[in-house]
């Protein structure tokens, strides 16, 4: 028997973050995984980040998590998506070498002396907490974080073939679902899928479109000075009528259509059979061909996730330009697994009514490495806080995408795997990657989970940017050199003119400014030159969009009164005037604040008015 502060069950992206942050905070952690070498494994696509997901990774980095660092060590193609749009909606993405990635995660965890990796399958978790393993041994812990991903009673489908297991070649976790039910949790069933992998040497690359990364790759983590891996190309190809016809004529053999799978799959990550059926008028679908690694012999066929039988997959792949002679190294498959309706959790990702039990990642109905990791980090932080007997961390919707995601999950629940989108965040302009360190690192510092080096770098960044903002906002002095420079640049000096004002102009060109304004405005130029390219873009866009950003700030502040009106955990909803339907909805979600209550679907403004009155009254009494 071994005693720990925290036991983390599962070594995926959520589990790794949870274990790491607890250890950083001084807790003794056991990380239980079925296979040591599967820690940090990328089950599906070999890429981290993307739109909105990239923001989650940056948030993790700002809070002291590991995903950004691991990505920088394993990244082989970096690209900022939406580069042509404003910084609030830009999303960094990196293709990774999948073996290097999981090795990087393992190395980061190995560097933490407080973490003990335990190899084994958890068969039961019982109150107290006692974690029972397949070999009969037990672990005792004050807090438990469950991050089982797609492994709970997992069933893989490939055509008519069904195999127990959460990932190719790995077993399923069978007993744990019963433990969760014993804690009073209701479980549901979800489905996800993965596309076929193709042998790289069987593909004619001359027939594919090249998809390069950014010429100057930008790392995720503030700790990274230089990216260690060489940068490579991805490729594009497209499906055609030939593929669509093949799929249509074999639909009866696809588990989702034959009725073999009943669980719900993600709408935004549809299988190729879904695409062909639902969007019959589309002549072609894009396939993004991603290397699985620098030396890896396989390619990942992003866009044709499928559970059709092997013979159909072969023919579909060979109908793609460049893939006429291709051989599939591993066939695509779908996975069905148990998940917990996240409405049963509190805003700290703790199971309501079971102090010390936390859930994070796909078990909560999400999809994606980044969504999982961000939850893992928060669940880990709150397990740590629980052990320390301190208050949990809850991020607000106007503070982080992580806050939006957790609030969505616990308030709305989810019936399909939940993925982060920028459009889910009503205060999106406040949540850009460029402001993530200002927003979140101070919180991590207060929680005593931050390493010195990260803090030093963040502080340096913040003060660099502040200095640049200050000098750019300073009114220009109408001396001779300045006036001359302005005239040459085709600008006129009005009262209160500043570089910030110039930046607001649509034709402002920062590079040209830095090249030409050196003698006239040496202080401004040198402050801006101290910044990285990314920091400079942030300063310019903050100036350009300040009106819009301030408006969102005001809107966020307007609703914060309701967010701050807390509802006690002991609240009983038998209030006079509340209909039975409202009472049921509120009692089942048990919102933590009036703001959260107002976002529960179907809860009427009248019910909120009654609740507000009641809460105000009880606050007054106190």
């Amino acid at each position, binding site marked *: 028997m071994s005693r720990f502060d925290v036991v983390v069950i599962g070594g995926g992206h959520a589990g790794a973050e949870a274990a790491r942050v607890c250890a950083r905070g001084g807790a003794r952690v056991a990380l239980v995984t079925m296979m040591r070498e599967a820690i940090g494994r990328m089950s599906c696509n070999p890429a981290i980040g993307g*739109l909105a997901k990239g923001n989650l990774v940056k948030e993790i980095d700002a809070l002291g998590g590991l995903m950004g660092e691991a990505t920088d060590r394993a990244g082989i193609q970096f690209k900022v998506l939406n580069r042509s749009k404003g910084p609030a909606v830009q999303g960094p993405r990196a293709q990774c070498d999948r073996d290097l990635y999981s090795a990087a995660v393992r190395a980061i965890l190995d560097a933490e002396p407080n973490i003990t990796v335990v190899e084994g399958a958890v068969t039961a978790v019982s109150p107290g907490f006692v974690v029972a393993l397949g070999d009969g041994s037990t672990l005792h812990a004050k807090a438990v974080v469950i991050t089982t991903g797609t492994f709970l009673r997992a069933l893989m489908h490939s055509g008519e073939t069904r195999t127990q297991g959460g990932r190719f070649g790995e077993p399923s976790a069978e007993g744990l679902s019963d433990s969760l039910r014993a804690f009073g949790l209701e479980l549901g069933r979800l489905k996800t899928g993965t596309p076929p992998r193709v042998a790289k040497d069987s593909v004619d690359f001359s027939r594919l479109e090249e998809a390069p990364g950014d010429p100057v790759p930008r790392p995720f983590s503030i700790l990274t000075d230089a990216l260690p891996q060489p940068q490579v190309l991805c490729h594009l190809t497209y499906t055609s009528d030939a593929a669509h016809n093949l799929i249509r004529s074999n639909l009866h053999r696809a588990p989702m259509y034959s009725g073999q799978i009943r669980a719900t799959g993600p709408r935004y990550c549809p299988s190729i059979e879904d695409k062909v059926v639902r969007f019959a008028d589309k002549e072609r679908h894009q396939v993004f061909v991603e290397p699985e690694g620098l030396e890896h012999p396989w390619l990942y066929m992003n866009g044709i996730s499928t559970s059709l039988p092997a013979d159909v997959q072969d023919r579909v792949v060979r109908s793609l330009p460049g893939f006429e002679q291709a051989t599939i190294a591993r066939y695509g498959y779908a996975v069905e697994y148990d998940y917990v309706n996240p409405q049963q959790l509190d805003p700290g990702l703790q199971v309501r009514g079971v102090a010390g039990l936390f859930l994070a990642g796909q078990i909560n109905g999400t999809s994606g490495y980044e969504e999982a990791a961000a939850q893992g980090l928060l669940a880990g932080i709150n397990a740590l806080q629980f052990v320390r007997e301190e208050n949990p961390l809850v991020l607000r919707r106007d503070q982080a995408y992580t806050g939006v995601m957790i609030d969505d999950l616990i308030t709305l629940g989810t019936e399909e795997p939940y993925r982060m989108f920028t459009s*889910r965040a009503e205060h999106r302009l406040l949540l850009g990657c460029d402001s993530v360190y200002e927003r979140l690192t101070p919180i991590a510092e207060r929680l005593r989970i931050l390493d010195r080096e990260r803090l030093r770098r963040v502080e340096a960044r913040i003060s660099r940017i502040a200095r640049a903002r200050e000098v750019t906002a300073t009114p220009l002095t109408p001396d001779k050199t300045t006036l001359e420079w302005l005239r040459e640049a085709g600008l006129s000096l009005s009262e209160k003119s500043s570089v910030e004002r110039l930046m607001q102009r649509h034709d402002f060109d920062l590079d040209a400014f830095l090249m030409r304004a050196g003698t006239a405005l040496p202080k401004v130029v040198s402050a801006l030159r101290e910044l990285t390219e990314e920091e400079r873009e942030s300063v310019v866009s903050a100036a350009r969009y300040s009106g819009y950003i301030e408006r969102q700030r005001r809107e966020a502040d307007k609703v914060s009164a309701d967010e701050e009106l807390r509802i006690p955990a002991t609240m009983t909803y038998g209030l006079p005037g509340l209909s039975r339907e409202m009472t049921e909805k509120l009692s089942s979600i048990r919102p933590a604040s009036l703001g959260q209550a107002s976002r529960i679907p179907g809860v009427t403004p009248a019910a909120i008015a009654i609740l507000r009155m009641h809460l105000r009254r009880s606050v007054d009494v106190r």
Partner: protein
Amino acid sequence: MNGSLTDTIVAPATPVGRSALAIVRIDGPQSSAILESLGCSPLPDERHAVFVRLKKDGELLDECVAIRYLAPRSFTGNDLVELTLHGNPLLVQRVVSAAISHGARMAEPGEFTERAVVNGKLDLVQAESVADLINARTPLQAKLSLSNLGGSLSETAGRLREGLLYVISRLEAALDFSEEGYSFIERDDAIARVDESLNGVQRLNDTFRRGVASTRGLEAVIIGRPNAGKSTLLNRLVGSERSIVTPVAGTTRDIVRETIELGGLPVTLSDTAGLRDSDDVVESIGIDRAREAARRADIILQLIDATAPDEEPVETSAAVIRVYTKSDLADVPEGELGISVPAERGIEELLARLDAVVRDQFVAPEGSAVLVNERQRLAAVEAESALRAARFSLADGSSEEIVLVDLYRAATALAALTGGISNSDVITEIFSKFCIGK
């Protein structure tokens, strides 16, 4: 308004006064219990009219017909009881008091409708049209309020919002799925659609003057030099001797008002002091009031004495009808309208002219959406300004997330007129229309 939303309220639903019948409403969780305490036992089935002898402490209050409505199938969405009594104010008062003694509270004005709104039985526009319908003074006004109660304005606002949702969801898709290799919406198309919404909102804003005029009625002010015949005309139009008429200039000092129906709307005519420089303090005040009334008027009847044609200029944005009086005593200039009250000349023509002005400039077109109050106008103005800003940033090439700030503002303003819009609406719209996902 806005007592507690959760207790039980009572009030007469018909005006105080003698009549054949009078209705008392009781709304809230205790309404059935109160009905039972008043002697209705056993309680009738929901929506069944029953004959009840209402009693308090054994004493008969009245015989009535009672109907019980159960939540949510009632006007307010709560449990509701309607008692149809004999129409004597004393009986009504005794029944209301009895209900109060059994735990009800006297309702505040508008409280039943307020409850209907918070329970989602009516949207705000519909609630406002209930009040307008009750206050309608002409058949045309009643028709307009019924049209908005039926959802004309709510539907138009809803359609405009749906049009915006189309653009919003595609711009959102362009942000969240920019890597998927689709073009979700072209800039030109987005601009054209925003323009279309903008036109719709502008058209709505343009209805405000007509909408207000049609619900509140119009103010028509008769002005002119002293002794031009203003009071004589007013008396003729209202059909009684309301204003004192003498040959002495400056007889009318304060404003005399009377309402008649013109072009389907109630029009309040005001007779004013004749405009001239006066040393008389009382007359001067009257003249200032006349000018003030003219500034606020919807219609001005500017009277000119044909025997001494001399106009006093007035500042106004109202529709002005020039009328030459005493046309039996002097010639009226070519093309001008002349009247003579004693000779009964030109009156029909004047009424026809007034009728035409009311119909052409003030009556809201039947069956179409019309803004009828300041709250609705403010929401529509906010939507218009947000759409202009969105139009501007679309045209100058701003990124989608910036355009969307203003589009959401416009959608929220339109929703403020009637209902709600949520982010999940946008996401559902995206997924129902596009093939997303690699």
